[in-house]
């Protein structure tokens, strides 16, 4: 069962820019910028799903559409079985949302924020609130405006975890946080998620934290899903292959699953994106007879970089 179903989602906005000096001073030109292109994504219930991608890939826009902060230009996004544009108070009471750019009521103290938010959620758990308050070491009587960025993020997270939401949507929660705070946030999240049946959708640039936290990952590129699968399967199908060869560089095409190919004198390395021992070794054996082939597992970070910046076959034909 999927807690989020995004199908053929399109989102555009109008970009404005001033015209050169030959035009009147106030003249502007606007054009349509597509942010999401035919995006389809399914988030299984109970998963911790990470959205990764470069700046401008469409992660934040996707999350805003899911929360009905933006209305999609076309396509549909269903959250908790309801179309996102029809999310009502009943559904929103089951969703937690924390975003990097979210404006908190800065004039409130942490205690006032919790008192204010508590009234909206029938399922608010005072014991969990106290536990998270102690875990995050938040000063209850200090105003939010006097808190550091990390502390504010913790306060927002606390206010979104204390009612055990069925779905937690986090937009860049680790941005700009120091390692200690980041660890606190991750641990707090993991504890809360393990205790209940919370599904998490998190967008982040912090691949190390995502690897610790998530069990599913989707990579967005220019508003399209490039990869969406479990981290286990992603880690399983990617390997860095090192070939120590004596033969010359082979002519002809290389398998499409080979990424980031680099070749020097007597040594070729690449990332195999569809690793299966027999198949990969078979390909290498055909192209580089008598070569020694080694396959090493890759951390998620290297896999994502290889996917985002493919340099497949770029050295083909240039090295021997």
């Amino acid at each position, binding site marked *: 069962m999927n807690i989020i179903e995004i199908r053929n989602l399109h989102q555009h906005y109008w970009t404005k820019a001033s015209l050169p000096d030959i035009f009147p001073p106030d003249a502007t030109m606007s054009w349509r910028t597509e942010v999401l292109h035919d995006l389809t994504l399914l988030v299984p219930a109970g998963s911790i799903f990470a959205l990764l991608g470069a700046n401008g890939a469409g992660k934040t826009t996707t999350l805003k559409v899911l929360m009905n*902060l933006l209305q999609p230009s076309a396509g549909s996004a269903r959250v908790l079985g309801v179309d996102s544009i029809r999310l009502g108070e009943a559904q929103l009471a089951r969703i937690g949302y924390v975003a990097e750019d979210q404006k908190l*009521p800065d004039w409130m103290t942490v205690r006032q924020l919790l008192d204010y938010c508590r009234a909206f959620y029938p399922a608010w758990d005072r014991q969990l609130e106290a536990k998270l308050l102690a875990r995050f070491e938040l000063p209850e009587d200090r105003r939010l405006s006097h808190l550091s960025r990390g502390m504010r993020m913790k306060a927002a997270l606390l206010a979104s975890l204390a009612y055990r939401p069925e779905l937690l949507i986090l937009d860049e929660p680790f941005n700009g946080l120091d390692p200690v705070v980041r660890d606190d946030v991750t641990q707090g999240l993991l504890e809360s998620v393990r205790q209940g049946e919370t599904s998490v959708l998190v967008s982040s640039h912090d691949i190390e934290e995502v690897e610790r936290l998530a069990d599913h990952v989707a990579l967005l590129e220019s508003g399209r899903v490039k990869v969406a699968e479990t981290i286990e399967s992603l880690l399983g199908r990617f390997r860095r292959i090192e070939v120590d060869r004596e033969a010359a560089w082979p002519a002809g095409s290389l398998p499409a699953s080979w990424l980031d190919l680099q070749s020097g004198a007597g040594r070729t390395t690449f990332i195999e994106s569809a690793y299966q021992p027999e198949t990969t070794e078979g390909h290498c054996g055909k192209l580089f007879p008598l070569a020694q082939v080694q396959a090493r597992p890759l951390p998620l970070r290297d896999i994502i970089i290889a996917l985002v910046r493919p340099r497949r076959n770029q050295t083909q034909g240039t090295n021997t």
Partner: protein
Amino acid sequence: MNLTWHIIRKDLQRSRWALVCWAFGLAYLLLQPWAPLQGDNLRDYLQGAAMLLVLVLGVGLIADLVQADHPTQENSHWRALPVSAGRMVTVKLLLIGMIFVVAPVVAVCIRHVFDQGKSLHHASEYGLEGLILAAIVLSLAASAACTRNVLQCLLLWVSLIFGTGTLADFLNRFAPVLSLQGMARMGMTKVLVILTLSSTIALAVILNQYLRRRVVSSAVLLLGGAVAMATVGAFWGYFYFYSTQ
């Protein structure tokens, strides 16, 4: 309803000091005939200061109360809470309506009761005062709902008023000149129509911003409303002009 009052309490707590100052200024304006002050200069000075306080704080408070939970900003805190847009717009209209329309009219009424005992004889006056205040407050709230801060709100509101006034002045050149008889027949109708029209348009803009989040259509409504009011203001007298010929 509990959540509605919960949000109202939050807004009142947030703006409590500014509201106290505003109420103090309003109370002084209402009670100043009984103030034990010596000298006309001091009395005039204090009256002017109180009027300025009430005006400036009133504009700032209305804009701030609306923009504290902005209707269209995606990163507003309330947008992540289980609060429907309908509930939030109800909260805002109730709050500004009670504080800036109902409370001043009731205060004036109470003053008259104590002053001359004439409140029951001039109920329509209070209705007109309420309508004037509603038109001002709703148009300010509509400007606040279409802008991002108090200064922008004030600039938009002043521009709309001056724009409407300038257009009405221009259109008045083509409007009929009413005879005394015609003016007597028209009475307050034109004023009531303009006040009702401006309140309705402002309300439509506020609802459009909160419920549909369509900034462009709100801007069109504001501009169209300004033109409509100027046109009505200029040409409303035609009926009375011809009926008295």
